């Protein structure tokens, strides 16, 4: 795979401009927010991201599948054999990610202008959003793991700031802290992985590490250690089992934040990172098996929880966890480009679902419980139609974007591992069910809230509906990025990314390639299954008018999944409480009786010795001279003796 390095100064300039524009937007909005007229921060913030997006499109047009742009900005760390530069690397994978980040990012910025209109923290909100876009771009553009890590931590910070955006609510602050702390656990893994890479390969540059790694023996301990540690980082960032509990709580932030950070971009950073180091992972089949296992488990686990949630954003949050699990399952199967494909289509329809949910919440003045909604179909038609299409896309309705990307992963699973295929299909049917449960409860039948709320229901302003419509179009046609071989000559995304993922091909196990008939059969099976599930949901929620019962009425398994398998309670009991008790012990005993005594004792010692030794300063000059001479003599004797 010979890669062609582009040195065109225009491209390099544009490449630098892409992350700098949101940074400039952040600085303007952050530093000058007091002097800006009200509302202008939104337009500045959206404008810089749009400008960034235009730069990305330009680069996308000029960079072919085997081209790349490499910019070494400066030599960052150079000590004793370690040489880390601050570099930017743009190749097809980066471009796909940048298109998603700036494109979807821009739409969400635009949407936020309408959504956050009455919020007192309007300028602050756009400051954080711009900062997030900057760090996210740094994450995907960095040429080595350390630059990626800056972005990785930066987006974590922005996530924290935005989850706790309404910081007057104590519960929201707790959610922000939970997200931050859980991410730290993953970040520790990532950091250790980086140390191991640096120790074994002497560099952190992606390309060099990949090349050096392909010379090692597959499945060696060191490769497994590195990949497992990196995967721990991905688990934290991408909310996989067992570190997923922060993501549903992160819904405390404003809805555009959930769409941008906790659905479309940041949580997919783990997927990006694994695809970025695909050679390392492909050479560690043991790790790949673990990724597959965790991905599949998370996918079905979160889908189960999604079935019984009543908060519209929580349903979407568990759906995100489940879909991320599906992406990791794809990575675990070695289908790296399929993982990215699903990442892209998921960014479209999940961002749309969140924005649509935001539009519903906006229309109902903050109501988030689907039990108090219903019948909104006629009142907010644009929101209804776009959300319906997004739900069809995520459910895998034939020919929509999610259908193709999900089907590709399922086809890979069918090739490699039949049980995995069955579980993933099951999980995608669950997805179809809970999504349509949401749609039917929200938009159909009659309104279940108060009359007063109903009289205030209104369609959102154009800044909110335009992003919905654009994302809706993308959710419909996003599948064109990767039409399977049955429908087109070749898989566009797969061949576009071949320069990035090609290095791992020799190390992957290849199953029997599916025949076109088999592929079509699998597709129609998945499609019909999804339709049947949707019809079942329709029967249950429209024909039979079923409503989610009170939690006291739930029994057995339903109760278990309503309470999210009691995972939060388990963590509370077995991790948080022991940690608190340990802190109490160290605070009350170790701190008070050991550390305090050592500190006070050293103070007392200095005081006492000072008080005693000062008596030597008698004022008698003769004595001083005598002491000096004695000292000299003593030094002289010591010198002679040694």
């Amino acid at each position, binding site marked *: 795979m010979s890669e062609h390095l582009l040195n065109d100064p225009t491209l390099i300039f544009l490449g630098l401009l892409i992350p700098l524009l949101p940074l400039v937007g952040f600085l303007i909005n952050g530093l000058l927010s007091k002097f800006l007229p009200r509302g202008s921060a939104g337009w500045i913030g959206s404008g810089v991201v749009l400008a960034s997006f235009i730069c990305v499109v330009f680069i996308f047009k000029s960079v072919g599948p085997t081209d790349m742009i490499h910019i070494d900005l400066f030599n960052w760390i150079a000590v004793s054999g370690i040489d880390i530069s601050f570099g930017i690397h743009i190749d097809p994978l980066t471009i796909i990610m940048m298109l998603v980040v700036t494109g979807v990012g821009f739409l969400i910025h635009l949407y936020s202008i309408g959504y956050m209109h009455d919020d007192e923290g309007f300028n602050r909100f756009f400051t954080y959003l711009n900062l997030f876009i900057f760090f996210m771009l740094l994450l995907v553009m960095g040429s080595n793991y350390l630059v990626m890590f800056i972005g990785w931590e930066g987006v974590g910070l922005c996530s924290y700031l935005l989850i706790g955006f309404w910081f007057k609510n104590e519960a929201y602050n707790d959610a922000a802290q939970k997200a931050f702390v859980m991410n730290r656990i993953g970040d520790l893994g990532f950091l250790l992985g980086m140390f191991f890479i640096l120790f074994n390969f002497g560099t952190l540059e992606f390309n060099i590490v990949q090349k050096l790694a392909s010379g090692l023996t597959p499945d060696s301990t060191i490769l497994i250690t590195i990949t497992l540690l990196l995967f721990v980082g991905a688990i934290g960032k991408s909310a996989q089992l067992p570190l997923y509990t922060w993501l549903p709580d992160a819904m405390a932030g404003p809805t555009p934040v959930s769409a941008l950070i906790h659905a479309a971009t940041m949580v997919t950073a783990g997927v990006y990172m694994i695809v970025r180091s695909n050679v390392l992972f492909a050479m560690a089949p043991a790790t790949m098996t673990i990724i597959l296992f965790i991905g599949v488990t998370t996918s079905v686990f979160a889908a189960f929880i999604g079935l019984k949630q009543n908060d519209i954003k929580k349903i979407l949050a568990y759906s995100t966890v489940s879909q991320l699990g599906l992406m990791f399952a794809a990575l675990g199967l070695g289908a790296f480009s399929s993982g990215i494909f699903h990442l892209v289509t998921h960014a479209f329809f999940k961002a749309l679902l969140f924005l649509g949910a935001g539009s519903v919440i906006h229309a109902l003045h903050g109501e988030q419980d689907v039990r108090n909604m219903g019948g909104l179909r006629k009142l907010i038609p644009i929101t209804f139609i776009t959300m319906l299409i997004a739900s069809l896309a995520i459910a895998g309705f034939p020919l929509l974007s999610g259908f193709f990307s999900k089907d590709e992963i399922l086809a890979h699973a069918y090739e490699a591992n039949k049980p995995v295929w069955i579980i993933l299909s099951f999980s995608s049917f669950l997805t179809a069910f809970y999504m349509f449960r949401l749609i039917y409860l929200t938009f159909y039948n009659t309104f279940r809230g108060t009359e007063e709320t109903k009289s205030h229901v209104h369609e959102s302003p154009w800044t909110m509906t335009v992003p919905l419509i654009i994302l809706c179009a993308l959710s419909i046609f996003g599948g064109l990025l990767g039409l399977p071989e049955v429908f087109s000559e070749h898989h566009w995304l797969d061949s576009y990314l071949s320069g990035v993922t090609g290095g791992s091909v020799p190390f992957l196990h290849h199953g029997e390639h599916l025949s076109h008939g088999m592929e079509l059969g699998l597709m129609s099976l998945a499609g019909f299954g999804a339709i049947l599930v949707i019809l079942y949901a329709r029967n249950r929620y429209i024909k039979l008018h079923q409503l989610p019962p009170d939690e006291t009425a739930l029994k057995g398994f339903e109760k278990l999944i309503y309470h999210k398998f009691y995972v939060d309670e388990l963590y509370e009991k077995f991790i948080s409480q022991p940690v608190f008790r340990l802190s109490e012990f160290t605070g009350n005993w170790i701190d008070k009786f050991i550390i305090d005594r050592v500190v006070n004792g050293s103070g007392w010692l200095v005081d006492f010795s000072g008080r005693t030794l000062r*008596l030597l300063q*008698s004022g*008698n*000059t*003769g004595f001083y001279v*005598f002491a000096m*001479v004695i000292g000299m003599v003593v030094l002289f004797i010591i010198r002679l003796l040694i």
Partner: protein
Amino acid sequence: MGPVEQIVPLNWYIVLSTFLFCIGVMGVLFRRNAIIILMCIEIMLNSVNLLLVSFSAYTGNSDGQVFVFFTMVVAAAEVAVGLALMMSIYRNIGSTDIDVLNKLKW
């Protein structure tokens, strides 16, 4: 080597310097008059100078002589400051006895 170096061995200079230095130290320790103490410090300095010069002459290396010039300059400055201090002290307390100078203490 000049004629003097052939007659007088280096050891004699070392012994002489040591004697001078000890006289200086004893003077500083046992005399109470500050001016005498200053003079004794000068004796110590000059004993070292003598030693430096003689080593320089016997080893044929001029470094020692250069060093001595520096010592002299520093000594001159030190005497100027020291005597000025003594003057000032005498004007204030009418004595140069160091036993009287015991006000500066804890």
